[in-house]
């Protein structure tokens, strides 16, 4: 199929349309506005539902309602907006209905800025909302990867009756790349045995997240956990680069991951046997795969555009087997490959000890650098 140049946000929106999204509800926020704007003309023209909500809480609760009908439904937002959706997300998780969330991270905390960041990894993966639940989170590193994941996102949401989040940052949302879009799928409206549609010729369906009887709520929690454990077992996604003979391994997701690819190539050109492991499903996280890499890695370099949020997951997998080095840029700063190359060289010079605290050492380096300036 022919390749076309697409802007990330618009490509994601069109991919959702082709994946059969029936309803979109959202609220403007940079850097994801193009998703909403694209939907505002595309969906009506297809006779599907588009509403610009009055706020993110309204948007996520419109999604909640639509999700209860069993339709393929989505919203998109960015950091502050995602924070405002946390109650709704928790209700959706607690009601066990499917939805897709496109989360375009920006610099924070607070109003911050609109530059690319990965500062919301913990929020989306570790529990932004209240209660025990785990959204499925996929972090593409390119526009092609993002559009390829879009149909999967809707299928995962329905398969696990869960939130499926496509996590990117402003740079992927704003950049253009040549891509091939997925085929246009017909909209299929199934009659789910849980969805509300008016109780015609069947017993009525009631969807709720309130369970005043605690033993029942415990069962529900276990049921949600059970589905999550299935997702953990079946839905691990990642991509490997130059790992066959790699003695040093960079781990980074999304934008940091693709920048690392450039760094790996540059370092290889310098004769360093380094490879890249790029998690795509960051929740569930590929712990096993990282653990296995411990056998070949002299040490790891974890790169993120935050203070080391995914680092904790890598540490959980590595468990002091191999030294880990960390490098992060903050507040919307997009690192250059050269910075990573430098880190790789430093790592090779001194791989450190498994007990080292990588975040601590990184902080020291950042401060030292700050003083130089």
């Amino acid at each position, binding site marked *: 199929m022919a390749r076309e140049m697409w802007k990330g946000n618009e490509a994601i929106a069109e991919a959702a349309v082709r994946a059969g999204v029936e309803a979109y509800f959202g609220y403007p926020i940079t850097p994801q506005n193009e998703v909403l704007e694209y939907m505002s003309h595309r969906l009506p023209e297809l006779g599907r539902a588009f509403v610009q909500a009055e706020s993110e809480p309204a948007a996520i609760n419109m999604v909640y309602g639509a999700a209860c009908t069993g339709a393929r439904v989505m919203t998109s937002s960015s950091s502050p907006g995602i924070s405002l959706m946390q109650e709704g997300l928790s209700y959706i998780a607690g009601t066990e209905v499917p939805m897709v969330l496109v989360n375009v991270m920006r610099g924070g905390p607070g109003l911050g800025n609109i530059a690319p960041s990965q500062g919301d990894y913990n929020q989306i993966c570790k529990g932004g909302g209240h209660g025990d639940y785990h959204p499925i989170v996929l972090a593409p590193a390119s526009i092609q990867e993002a559009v390829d994941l879009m149909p999967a996102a809707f299928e995962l949401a329905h398969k696990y009756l869960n939130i499926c989040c496509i996590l990117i940052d402003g740079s992927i949302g704003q950049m*253009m*790349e040549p891509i091939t879009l997925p085929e246009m799928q017909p909209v299929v409206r199934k009659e789910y045995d849980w969805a509300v549609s008016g109780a015609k010729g069947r017993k009525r369906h009631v969807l709720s997240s309130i369970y005043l009887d605690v033993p029942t709520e415990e069962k529900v929690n276990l049921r949600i956990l059970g589905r999550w454990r299935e997702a953990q077992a079946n839905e691990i996604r990642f991509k490997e680069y130059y790992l066959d003979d790699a003695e040093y391994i960079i781990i980074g997701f999304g934008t940091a991951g693709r*920048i690392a690819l450039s760094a790996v*190539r540059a370092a290889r050109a310098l004769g360093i046997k380094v490879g890249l492991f790029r998690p795509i499903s960051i929740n569930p996280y590929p712990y096993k795969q990282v653990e296995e890499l411990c056998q070949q890695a002299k040490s790891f370099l974890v790169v993120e555009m935050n203070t080391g949020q995914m680092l904790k997951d890598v540490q959980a997998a590595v468990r002091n087997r191999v030294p880990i080095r960390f490098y992060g840029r903050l507040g919307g700063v997009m690192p250059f490959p050269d910075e990573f190359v430098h880190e790789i060289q430093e790592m090779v010079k001194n791989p450190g000890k498994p007990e080292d605290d990588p975040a601590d050492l990184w902080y020291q380096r950042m401060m030292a650098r700050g003083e130089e300036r």
Partner: protein
Amino acid sequence: MQTEIFLAGFGGQGVMFAGQVLSYAAMDIGKEVTWIPSYGPEMRGGTANCTVVIADEEIGSPLVQDPPGVIVMNLPSLDKYEPAVKPGGILIVNSSMVDREVKRTDITSVAIPCNEIAEEAGDKRMANIVATGALLALLPVLTLEDIEAALKAHMPGRHKHLLPKNIEALKRGAEYAKKNARKAK
């Protein structure tokens, strides 16, 4: 094989469009390509820059610290980005908007009056295309024909009539650059 091009100017100088033309051309000849913008905080009249990366394999970072090819359309951009050009790289300066010389001698530079040349070619809004032609004359990552084809293929219908003029501007830019390039020492 990977080449990076950085374009900088005021909003309204067509810097973003020029970058996109390069991207389309690269895509059409089967290359991998990324185009990424960066705007200043201002809503209007602020700075507008973009980076284009053209490669044969999956592209990593869409940004680079020292691009081998740089186009600056105004003085602030020259001041800010002259130091960034990769040693031995190419710097195209729109001399219509810049009244100073390029300082670096380790790079090949062209001071080209894009606005005037564009006007001669028929429309002063094509200064960006002139600069693009100039760059490609010295950085043969794409041929002028590739650009022509891309313009033909992707220019919105309502602008199609401007096609000949654009091609003219492209060529003039290239010619000027060949003649007036100040080679790296």
